[in-house]
């Protein structure tokens, strides 16, 4: 079974630019989550999809962040325009309800 895959693994952009992160969850997992970890701090929840619907987006920091999940399969997280404080590692995870999360290896975003 293929795991959760994220692309790219690293991204370095300048302040004001746009970046789009992609996540391919495990096939058949309806629940998809985005998290972010800033250096040395906790893994913070951003957003939860059930299939193509946003179930909970209470963790999205502001309207510069836009997440989509086309057809309930892969998901994208776009940051536009990026700010310095957006730097961190963005994790995607998927699961069947009631089961543990399966994480991707993350995208390390650096905004300069």
């Amino acid at each position: 079974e293929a795991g959760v895959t994220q692309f790219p693994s690293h991204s370095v952009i300048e302040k004001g630019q746009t970046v789009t992160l992609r996540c391919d969850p495990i096939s058949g997992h309806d629940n998809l989550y985005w998290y972010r970890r800033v250096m040395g701090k906790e893994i913070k929840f951003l957003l939860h999809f059930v299939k193509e619907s946003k179930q909970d987006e209470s963790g999205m920091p502001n309207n510069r962040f836009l997440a989509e999940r086309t057809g309930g399969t892969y998901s994208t997280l776009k940051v536009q325009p990026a700010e310095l404080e957006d730097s961190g590692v963005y994790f995607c995870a998927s699961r069947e309800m009631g089961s543990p999360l399966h994480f991707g290896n993350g995208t390390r975003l650096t905004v300069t």
Partner: protein
Amino acid sequence: GESVGLHLPTLSVQEGDNSIINCAYSNSASDYFIWYKQESGKGPQFIIDIRSNMDKRQGQRVTVLLNKTVKHLSLQIAATQPGDSAVYFCAENPRSSGGSYIPTFGRGTSLIVHP
């Protein structure tokens, strides 16, 4: 607000020793808890989980203890090996105001195993 936290940010042990990593939670609505291990450059990986109707669960070299009275969770690793060096996260799984279950993580404990 309610949160998940860890008592010790860094734990150093000798190879072969037993390790204990602690975690406090405060959300009484949580009924499912998970420990994850994160190695450098990788995402968190599932280690072991426990539901609130249990107080102990054992896996291979790992044991999770749950004390609901004091809202405390611990991960015990027996005969710690250098390959156990990683950051360990506990997560609780409360139901959000939106109705969905959102795994919530603490800051993590860095376990360093010295050969």
